[in-house]
Every structure is written in structure tokens, then in C-alpha cells.
């Protein structure tokens, strides 16, 4: 598969594009043995984001060594925490408040420096807002065509990802030297967070200028499980008719199940629920054990975000709604009656 023609074409491409760098062309038969992954972990206020550990799981599937990377202020404690995660060989941390907010303008050059230093063949991160914002920029700096939102790994250069809102599944083979990849969290469950003992080392810090200034954030506070990693999700749509009804019916149901709350685009656009709760092609992808939705018709853009759920249950008064074509259990009825009844019956169990 590694023909001579491709080798020389690649060599030519490399020399043309990266004259400033020393040209080291690895021997291809040795590539598999040299496979090494850099998994970029997310942290916030000195706390590891467990969802970002899906990059470690994906790295484990690739084989080869896994190095985790974390940067920000006070990240030594994050590194200590991540060191216990099974499968990680080494953790590189860069202690610098400039990286705390994950701004790609300086975080991307930071990663590129550390990638060059470590000679990684695969760079992985979760397909979250952070990963989506950062990794394509890193890929461009490395002259690599990034691969987004993979759901499976077939080999070290062949990956599976959904396209067209999950209506088609694409398998692609990358010819790039460095593979820059974001992984779908729900397809790569988090590894064990105990029992590992990774070495912790400080990384290089190029201290690149950051032209962008972080101003503020406004995050929805919630005691409920995180939507993208929750085991159960209850989700409401246009059928709830108003924000008042959404707030009256959905939270009690979520609490009765210990579930996270999601919403369809229609519900978000109508102001019933916050943007960050949107499930679908342009919102969050979820794959919980149970996805229970009420008042959602099931447009393809919505199905894109939830059809990998283990069990789908739907309540809708329109028996012909497309949601019933994917639902394992469908209840045709008025959600204003059925949801409170369901909440009561679940609570009393």
C-alpha cells in the first residue's frame, strides 16, 4: 500500500511545504511500530473534563503509546489526576494561564511545538466545542487534513465517521503523516480512571502571542448529569408549546429518572430551552441507554444526534410522526397527560 510513487510524492510535498524544518522521512515499515498518540485533554479551573478522556480510549484502539496533554493554569493537579487513568504512558502539562481558556490562537502553536517535540503520528481530541475549535487549526499548521468526529477506528490510517447528518457512514484512509482526529465521545466510552501510573513531565511552551481576548462566559448551571455523557436523556420538542410547559414537565421527569435534559431545535429556537441543550446534527450527539422524548417529530437533523441511543422511547400525539420509525417504544398520546403520569409512576417505584 505504501508505493514508491507515493513515497516520493510525499517526500516532494514535504520538502516543498516545510523547508524550514529538518526533513526526516520515517521508514514506512517502521511506522506501525512508531505509532504514538497525543491525546489532548480538556480541563477547566483545574478540573479534568472526563468526557475528553474518550480520546484516550480511541488512542488505546490505535495501539502504540499514548501521551496525554493538558495546559492551563494550575494544571499540575489535572496531570496528577489524569496520571491515574489507565492506558496513558506519559502526561505532558504546560502550566501557563494564557492557555486556560483554550483559545486556539495560542493553543494551536503550543500543541504544534509539543507535537514536533514528541514526533506523534496521531493527535486526538474529543469532538467537543474545544476540540472542534482547536484541532482543525492545528491540522492546518501541520499541513494535515483533519478527520472529524470519528466513530470507529479500522486501522492506524483508516477511520469511520458519519456524514450527511448520520445518513451515511464514510470510511476514509488518510495519507497524511500526522493524523489529526476528533473523536465522538459516545462512540469511545471513557477509560478506567484508576490504576494507571503515567509519568508526568512539563511540556515546551512557545509562548505564542494570542491576538484574541477571552471576555466572559455564561454557562448554564445544572446539577443534572452532563447531556453528552448522561446514561439517560429526556428531551422535549415543539409539542411542549411554551417555556413554561417545558420547565413544568421536563425537569420533574428528568429528576425521576436521574436523566439529563435535551431539546429539539424547534424547542430551542422557540426559546423553550437553552441552546446548549440542543440535540442533533448541529447540537449535541448523545447515545444514552435511554432517550425518552416528548413532543418531538423526529426530523433527520434531530435523529442525527440521538439515533445511536440504546433504547429510544417517544411520546407524541401524531401516530405518523417519523420519530416512531426509530423508537423502540412509542406511546401515541397527549404529552400533557402522559408525561406527568409517567413522572408520577416512575417516582413511586
Amino acid at each position, binding site marked *: 500500500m505504501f508505493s514508491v510513487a507515493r513515497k516520493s510524492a510525499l517526500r516532494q510535498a514535504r520538502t516543498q511545504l516545510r523547508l524550514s524544518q529538518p526533513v526526516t522521512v520515517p521508514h514506512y515499515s517502521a511506522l506501525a511500530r512508531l505509532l504514538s498518540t497525543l491525546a489532548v485533554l480538556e480541563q477547566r479551573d483545574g478540573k479534568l473534563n472526563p468526557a475528553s478522556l474518550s480520546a484516550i480510549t480511541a488512542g488505546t484502539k490505535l495501539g502504540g503509546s499514548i501521551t496525554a496533554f493538558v495546559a492551563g493554569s494550575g494544571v499540575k493537579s489535572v496531570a496528577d489526576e489524569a496520571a491515574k487513568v489507565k492506558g496513558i504512558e506519559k502526561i505532558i502539562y504546560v502550566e501557563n494561564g494564557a492557555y486556560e481558556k483554550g483559545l486556539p490562537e495560542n493553543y494551536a502553536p503550543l500543541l504544534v511545538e509539543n507535537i514536533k517535540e514528541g514526533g506523534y503520528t496521531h493527535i486526538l481530541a474529543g469532538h467537543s*466545542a474545544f476540540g*472542534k475549535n482547536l484541532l482543525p487549526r492545528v*491540522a492546518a499548521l501541520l499541513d494535515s*487534513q*483533519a478527520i*472529524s468526529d470519528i466513530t470507529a477506528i479500522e486501522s492506524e490510517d483508516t477511520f469511520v465517521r458519519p456524514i*450527511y447528518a448520520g445518513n451515511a457512514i464514510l470510511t476514509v484512509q*488518510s495519507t497524511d503523516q500526522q493524523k489529526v482526529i476528533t473523536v465522538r465521545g459516545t462512540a469511545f466510552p471513557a477509560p478506567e480512571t484508576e490504576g494507571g501510573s503515567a509519568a508526568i513531565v512539563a511540556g515546551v511552551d512557545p509562548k505564542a502571542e494570542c491576538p484574541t481576548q477571552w471576555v466572559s462566559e455564561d454557562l448554564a448551571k445544572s446539577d443534572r448529569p452532563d447531556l453528552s455523557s448522561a446514561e439517560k436523556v429526556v428531551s422535549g420538542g415543539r409539542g411542549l408549546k411554551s417555556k413554561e410547559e417545558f420547565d413544568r414537565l421536563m425537569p420533574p421527569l428528568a429528576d425521576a429518572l436521574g436523566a439529563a435534559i435535551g431539546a429539539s431545535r424547534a424547542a430551542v429556537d422557540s426559546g423553550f430551552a437553552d441552546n446548549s441543550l440542543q440535540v442533533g446534527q448541529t447540537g449535541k450527539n448523545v447515545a444514552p441507554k435511554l432517550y425518552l422524548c416528548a413532543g418531538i417529530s423526529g426530523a433527520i437533523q434531530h435523529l442525527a444526534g440521538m439515533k445511536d441511543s440504546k433504547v429510544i422511547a417517544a411520546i407524541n400525539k401524531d401516530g405518523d410522526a417519523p420519530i416512531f420509525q426509530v423508537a423502540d417504544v412509542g406511546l*401515541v398520546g397527549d404529552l400533557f397527560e402522559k408525561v406527568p403520569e*409517567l413522572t408520577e409512576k416512575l417516582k413511586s417505584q
Partner: protein
Amino acid sequence: MSGLRILVPVKRVIDYAVKPRVNRAQTAVETANVKHSMNPFDELSIEEAIRLRERKVPVQEIVAFSAGPTKSQDILRTAMAMGADRSIHVVVEDKDPQLEPLGVAKLLKKVVEEQKSDLVILGKQSIDDDASQTGQMLAGLLGWPQATQASKVEIADKTVTVVKEVDGGVETVKADLPMVITTDLRLNEPRYASLPNIMKAKKKPMEKKTLKDYGLDEQPRLKTVKVTEPPPRKGGVKVDSVDSMISKLKELGAL
């Protein structure tokens, strides 16, 4: 300050309401005789550029851009009917090697330099390949600030303040021009092109170019191994009461 020179790249994709079908050979999604339209996020980009001008931000010109088959000119006309001043079409026929986000970003870098653009507004993702990469890659290649998934854009003098949608809420960032912004659903409500504007758009200039004009010969880095249909979900059951829903869910191990 002299007015903003805004570049808005748009992509022709299978219409969002069409359910795509994988072809028999499992090499691609069937695109022949399928309704195409402008990528929905790109409509938001055009709309935002026009609204900046309407909000009295000094805008010198809005240039719509597309790389793709001859039919992409239809969506450039749409962009001009919405309010773009002129457009550039780089012809990439279906038989040619297809551009990937990195290739598009490299092309856009050249276009930005040629057009002296100082603001590029792209959609956050195209609904066909769902990659969500081009804007970030372009910003990286140009060394410009980027603000992805924008739900609000404000420009005062040379400073751009963008509210971005992130996991769990919103985040606000600020940077000086030039800049790359990608649009999210909540940014605006794109307008419909009126008939008189559609007629006027026919007279607006459209430059036709090729990749060679920009000195690009980017070969795809990713090889399609196969395209398949997702595994269908098994047809479920309909129940008639809350009790039977609960017992069915228990049976399935979901409760």
C-alpha cells in the same frame, strides 16, 4: 477606517430536507437529480454580512465565493440576490479531484490575499461532510484570530466582539480585525431573496476562475474506502398506556 472587505464562502450541498441515499457501488452519496441548495450555515454568513452593513458598520463590499461545479453559480446568484455585491466562482467539476477542507482553506487564503479581505464569515459546518474545519484551518493558515460558532457579532472600529456557542452555554471573545468568524444557527434569520433582487443579481459581476489561477494543485489526502448506509434501527412497538411503556422499558433494560 476604510470600509470592511468581507468575504463569504458558500457551498452548494444537497438540500437539508432531502434524505441522502448511498449509491449502489458504495462509493458516495447519490447526487445526480437531487435537489441542491446553499449550505444553511452559509446563508447565515451572507445574512450576517448584509446585516453588518445595515447596522451602519462601514462595509466596502461583500464578496461571495464558491468552489465547485458550474451549478454552484446558482447559489452565488442567490447570495448576490440576498445582498452580496459580487462573486467569485472557482470551477471544480465533479470529475476533478475534490477539494477537502484543507484544500478549500488554502484556496481561500489566496482569495483573501487577492481580494484584500479583512473579515471572512463562513458557516460552522457544511451539512454534507459535517467536517466543521474550513474556517479554523483558514484562520490558522492566515495566522488570524478565529471565532467559531458565533451567535452574535459586534464590530466597533477595528474590534470584533463575538458571542460563541460552546458546550454548556456561551463564551464571549474579542479580537481586532482581520478575523475569521464561523456562524451558528442562532446568529440570525436569513432573508429570502425578493424577485426584484433576484433579477438585479443577474447583473452583478461573477468572476470565473480555476484552481490553476490561484496556483493550487491540491490533491486529496483522504481516500474514500467506502460509503455505507447506517445500520437501520429495528422497528419498535407502539404501546397504548404509560404502564405498558414503563414495563416495556424495563423489559428492554432501560429502566
